[in-house]
């Protein structure tokens, strides 16, 4: 058990020498990073470099084999951890939206606060309607996911996560499955969120977006963080040859 109380001046997420394997395949080979409250972190890198695995470890969707991950001072991979508390603190948005197809947009947003946090229904509904409005989906409250475009579904997914009032949001390649037209509407939503001070950790291939929004960029390759820095220096002065090669292919 951790005895020291977490205070907001300490990193909100702190990873130390995290190792993760799927069977014999080691996907994360000693990842360390710190995220401070209100920061926006972008993780970039080639496919298969462990980016998604990395953020999925933060809310314990994946377990780890070594090292430590702390969210607000609490060890995530402690056996006695209250997962509900962790997952209420850490929201997550997925590449494939993963909405509940049998529920309307509004119901999708309301479900977790009502069922998991046992909050009163009318209170949650009011909040859910506000959130849907915020992601510019007013008028679509009663549509089912199957009736919405990819971009709209993804914004419902964002609202659904926000309904739990998380302190941290994880975005796992949330625009990768969208067509270029709708990418923008999702990115605007994330940007607004970041500007309001939400701590965001994004795995993304949108370099322009990362450059614009991120406070700090991490480049991962083959399970290690090769290089990191604020966007201003990262994109101009990448020193590692692997980073340079990756950026030259993309920019």
């Amino acid at each position: 058990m951790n005895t020291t109380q977490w205070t907001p001046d300490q990193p909100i997420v702190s990873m130390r020498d995290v190792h993760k394997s799927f069977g014999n395949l080691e996907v994360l080979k000693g990842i360390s990073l710190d995220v401070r409250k209100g920061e926006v972190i972008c993780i970039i890198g080639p496919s298969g470099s462990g980016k998604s695995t990395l953020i999925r470890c933060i809310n314990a969707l994946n377990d780890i084999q070594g090292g430590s991950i702390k969210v607000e001072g609490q060890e995530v991979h402690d056996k006695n951890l209250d997962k509900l508390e962790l997952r209420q603190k850490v929201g997550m948005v997925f590449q494939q939206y993963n909405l509940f197809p049998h529920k309307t947009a509004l119901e999708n947003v309301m479900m977790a606060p009502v069922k998991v946090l046992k909050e009163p229904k009318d209170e949650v509904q009011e909040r859910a309607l506000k959130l849907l409005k915020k992601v510019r989906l007013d008028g679509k409250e009663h549509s089912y996911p199957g009736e919405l475009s990819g971009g709209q579904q993804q914004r419902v997914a964002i609202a659904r996560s926000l309904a739990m009032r998380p302190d941290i949001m994880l975005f796992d390649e949330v625009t990768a499955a969208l067509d270029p037209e709708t990418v923008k509407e999702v990115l605007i939503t994330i940007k607004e969120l970041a500007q309001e001070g939400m701590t965001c950790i994004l795995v993304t291939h949108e370099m322009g977006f990362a450059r614009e929004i991120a406070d700090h960029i991490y480049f991962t390759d083959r399970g290690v963080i090769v290089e990191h820095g604020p966007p201003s220096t990262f994109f101009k002065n990448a020193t590692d040859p692997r980073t340079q090669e990756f950026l030259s292919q993309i920019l």
Partner: protein
Amino acid sequence: MLDLFIEFFRQLAEDYPRWNFVFFHDERQWNRLLSGFYYTVWLSVACLIFSVVIGVAGAWLQGSPSRLVRSVVQGYIQFFRNTPPFVQLLFFYFALGQFTPTITAADGWTVEPIISNVGWAIVSLSFFAGAFNVEIFRAGIEAVPESTKEAASSLGFSRLQTYTEVVLPLAFRVCLPALNNNLVNLVKTTTQAIGIAVPELLYQCVGIWNDYPSALYPTMLVLFLLFILLVGVLVYSMHRWERAMRIPGYGG
């Protein structure tokens, strides 16, 4: 009107002795047929409900982290799926029935087993159909994408909440056609309860044609028609249910 109906069948039986619809002109036989029909309906509904409950619970236990629980469920399925339901029925009633406690009946001197033959029929048929239902629900559950379940757990849903709120509602929609088939079979299998003297439709019909050999063909005919009716109602309501559960923009 009713008199005309009764008179018609009485006359028919006189003119054509092989076509004695005895239950249409003899009230006692009519009551027998009716009570058999009620029993069959009651047996079917009870077994339907229990077998679905067993199916849902079994499919949930199949996903249990405990290997012991999983193998118990697997053993249950193997036993009930791979042995004849009629033998199961006899086994439950004659073998297990011996070991259940008895109670003194209302008349004060007869001793009755705590589970009657009807009780055993319900237990045995529900477990039989339930074994198939577990497999049917499992197929539906496996059709729910892992990513959807992951989204639920990322929102703090427990395993049970994910199952009841997300997995089951989706799985149900996938497995309704297969469930439909099995439940139709179950309704028809209730006739095997005749083997332990449950006074259901077949039992009463056999009674009627034993007492009135001239009513053999008509009774069989009515027996078929009543089952077609019963299964028809079931299939119709299952289809209505299927349609009501259809989600706009999802699946077919």
